[in-house]
């Protein structure tokens, strides 16, 4: 395989930038453009000071890390050049590497090589991609956990549980005359299945939360007209995105904004006010916002501190039954007229005075149990592929239950147990699937 190079840090202005080189010619190529002559015979995993030069002309003052195969990320000879940042300097160094024999790494190629060389498994490869793309400290911590293989361990535990059941059934089949061996019966499997299901559900639930942490919580602000939805959005966003006006029905289009409260990403969607209306344009907005309640992971339900709950408020409240929602009681700068008894997860704010707005974030954390997650050991599964597999696992679990219910012979029920075992193997990459690789690697961004 060729020797590849790419800029590994985010493009832009930063204190330093790192250019990574990997492949059998990595050292030779770097030697050509690096002034420190000790680099050539230096031992593995050492750092060297010097200049990157182009025909004698100093390009940048750098620290160069030398790492010999196989103890590197890609398992190939690897060099990392720590340069002083700046788009022009960094690009110049990359250009120099390319003219001296490197090829530009394609998206995800370092990770792909790490995977192909057997350095990391599939889950870890996906975890690295999440790490690259993560937007918040929580998300990157989560990704880091995958890299170190914690998800793999979680799944491996589950597979071990299954393997012991399967092995027991196999022994019973292959050595039926041995009365001393414990007979794995349907009812014993049924017992163990409960525990198994609990574990799978836990992973699934964590994977959902993990997904929320990674991509953000899809949030809808809902309330009848003129309770201050747009003002609240603006306070959250900190800029004038939505039009704020006292005239009913002026906020017609859904305006999206991504905000970070604490460490949580909220993808906010402002909505047109909900009210019965004859206005055609307005009613489209209303319909849309009603629909959005179903799509959203979180609803911020805005009510007016100054007014009693109206029939429209109560109608919305009805629709929110069973949803994750926070009641934002706005306009605390005015007199209290509201009857609060029916309302849950209340946060009292004044958008006008910018009072208590940040409390909305605290309430979100409480609602999604995210307070715990900040400190807990994060092992969460993310990624659409893994979730799809976990759903297949659940399907197979129900096949097992169905088999048990129908009193099918144990070796038939075992087929689905084995299937679960195989599926879990797919998550950690222990079962091979061709299309899986294509899908996985097409999603990688440049460098690591």
């Amino acid at each position, binding site marked *: *395989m060729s020797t590849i190079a790419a800029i590994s840090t985010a493009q832009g202005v930063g204190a330093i930038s790192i250019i990574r080189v990997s492949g059998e010619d990595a050292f030779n190529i770097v030697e050509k453009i690096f002034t420190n002559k000790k680099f050539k015979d230096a031992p593995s995993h050492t750092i060297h000071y010097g200049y990157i030069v182009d025909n004698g002309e100093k390009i940048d003052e750098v620290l160069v890390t030398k790492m010999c195969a196989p103890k590197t990320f890609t398992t190939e000879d690897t060099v990392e050049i720590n340069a002083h940042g700046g788009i022009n300097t960094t690009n110049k160094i990359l250009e120099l590497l390319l003219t001296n024999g490197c090829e530009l790494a394609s998206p995800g190629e370092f990770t792909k090589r790490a995977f192909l*060389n057997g350095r990391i498994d599939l889950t870890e490869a996906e975890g690295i991609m999440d790490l690259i793309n993560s937007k918040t400290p929580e998300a990157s911590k989560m990704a880091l956990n995958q890299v170190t293989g914690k998800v793999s361990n979680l799944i491996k535990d589950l597979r071990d549980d299954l393997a012991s059941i399967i092995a027991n059934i*196999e022994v019973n089949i292959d050595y039926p*005359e041995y*009365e001393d061996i414990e007979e794995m019966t349907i009812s014993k499997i049924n017992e163990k299945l409960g525990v198994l299901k609990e574990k799978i559900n836990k992973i699934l639930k964590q994977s959902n939360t993990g997904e929320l942490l990674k991509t953000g919580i899809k949030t809808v602000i809902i309330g009848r007209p003129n309770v201050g939805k747009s003002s609240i959005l603006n306070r959250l966003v900190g800029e004038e995105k939505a039009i704020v006006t006292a005239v009913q029905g002026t906020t017609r289009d859904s305006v999206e904004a991504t905000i970070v409260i604490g460490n949580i990403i909220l993808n906010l969607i402002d909505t047109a006010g909900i009210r019965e209306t004859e206005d055609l344009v307005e009613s489209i907005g209303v319909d849309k916002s009603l629909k959005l309640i179903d799509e959203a992971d979180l609803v911020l339900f805005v009510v007016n501190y100054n007014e009693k709950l109206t029939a429209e408020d109560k109608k919305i409240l009805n629709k929110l039954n069973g949803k994750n929602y926070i009641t934002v009681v706005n306009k605390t700068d005015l007199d209290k007229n509201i009857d609060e008894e029916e309302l849950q997860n209340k946060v009292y704010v004044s958008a006008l005075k910018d009072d208590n707005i940040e409390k909305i974030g605290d309430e979100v954390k409480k609602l999604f149990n995210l307070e715990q997650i900040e400190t807990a050991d994060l092992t969460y599964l993310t990624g659409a592929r893994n979730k799809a597999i976990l759903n297949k696992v659940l399907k197979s679990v129900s096949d097992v239950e169905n088999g048990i219910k129908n009193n099918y012979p144990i*070796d038939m029920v075992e087929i689905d147990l084995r299937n679960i075992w195989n599926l879990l193997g797919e998550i950690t990459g222990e079962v091979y699937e061709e299309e899986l690789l294509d899908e996985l690697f097409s999603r990688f961004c440049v460098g690591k």
Partner: protein
Amino acid sequence: MEYEIIVVGAGHAGCEAALASARKGHQTLLITGNINNVADMPCNPSIGGSAKGIVVREIDALGGEMGKNADKSLLQIKMLNGSKGPAVRALRAQADKITYPKNMLKTLKETSNLTIYEGIVADVLTDNNKVTGVSLETGEIFKSQIVILTTGTYLNSDILVGSTRRREGPHGEKPSNKLSDNLAKKGFIIKRLKTGTPPRIAKDSIDFSETKLEPGDDKYYTFSFDNKVYYDVDKQEPCYLIYTTEKTHKIIMDNLNKSSMYGGLDDIKGIGPRYCPSIEDKVTRFRDKLRHQLFLEPESLYYDDIYIQGFSTSMPYEVQEEMVHSLPGLKKAKILKYAYAIEYDAIYPTQMKASLESKVLENLYTAGQINGTSGYEEAAGQGLIAGINASLKLEGKEPLILKRNESYIGVLIDDLITKGIKDPYRLLTSRAEYRLLLRSDNADLRLREYGYKVGLVSEEDYQKLLTKKKGINDLIEELKTFKVTPKDNDYLESINTVPLKDGISLYNLLKRPEVDIKQIKRYLIHDYEEAILNEVNTEVKYEGYIKKDNLEAEKMLEMENKKIPEDIDYDKIHNLASEAKEKLKEVRPSSLGQALRISGVNPADISILMIYLKKENY
């Protein structure tokens, strides 16, 4: 004298190979050390068992002899796993150690084109890495186009008892002292293996009141699809169950260093089978287990030996006496034959192709224990395939290669050539991924067609298969066409199934777990034989599971169809992990599917291989 095919060794593999070749019309010479010892059963007096019983059915479906010969020689027969699903049921029989070889010899002698000759083969003759015949230890030479080696445990075999080692085959037979070394000189990798056998005791010295009776099933079964019954269900010989005692374990532990395997001999290289451990192994490896199960099995109607299954050992004779006398019912037991371990040479099986032809020498085939397997059935299955493929090669035809979703024999051979072996290989149902497809009952539906095509299944038997297939289709059609309605509720309730509100097809009624096809028979217009009823019962009831297995098998076949060129140079693929490279060079898989099954080759290596194949436009 010049032959087309020479088979070396007349054990279970050799007999099948020679019969297949001769029946296909090829001049065949079968060389054996002792003509009165063909198809010998030096270990268990039994044929079949889990997975193995299905292999015997497969052999029969393909036109082999083992099933028929076992049917003629039964002492007792059972259907194992009867309480489990149809996929894992298998026949196990006690076979008479006198009758079985006698019947086989008779068949061999009656087969035309087949000559039997007594002698010990010393070398395989070659010209330009191609086989030309064999030479015997006497110096005699026999020419042939093809040689099939089925030497069992006779290559450089040593009998081990306590601290003694004797160069000998099973029960004092002459071993083959030269062939193995000559094969090594030709480039074969030789592996030392070990197995063992328990003591035999006199039947009339056993106190049966301290044992538990293990009778045969109360029903007629046959291995062969020709369904000829040679035994009386009421006159089967029973087996007996006993357990080792604390005293037995103490004797073993106290004398452990006297066992050949545990210090009695310090030059043991052979690796014993994990699946058939000696009693020393059992006691030392599972120290917290207070007792181990043993079976007392009759060996023959013609002599009194009782075989103590589960008690194989390489202790010295005097310790064996003590051990046996510590067992319940055996306080006064008289040992007729002492237990021994046997060490022998085998060829490392990744050196052969799926056809069982050697990669080292052209026109040399190997089958049975020489390939590192254990078990009569595993040997016979390979012997049959070797015989068929040697003949097909003579005829200039493509070899018969059974797939993993078609037969246990296919699983066995693929495992051998792909994964190699560490210890003697035993078939297990868990080795088969698609075992719901590989049932005892449908072996004929799976394989008889192949047997017919290669010419080992008669026109008459083939027509029977076609009739059976038609019967199955007709029955399914009938089940789909006819309905039961609420008018039938009285009957349905009488067979303990939920009464109907609307009519449903018989097919859907049969899908109910509690309903058996025999209870539906009354609604059928036509009569169907039992085999057809059972087949359809399984296919309808477990349709969902069978579909799943078929789907998985299709995925496997897709990878199987991605061929790897025979001349691929793995050294040119730089990024392969070195372990994977070594394994791929050793096994030289014919497809990506096979490559994927090699242990030590991981998915990452497969994708590198795939990328390379694509790049090189293979």
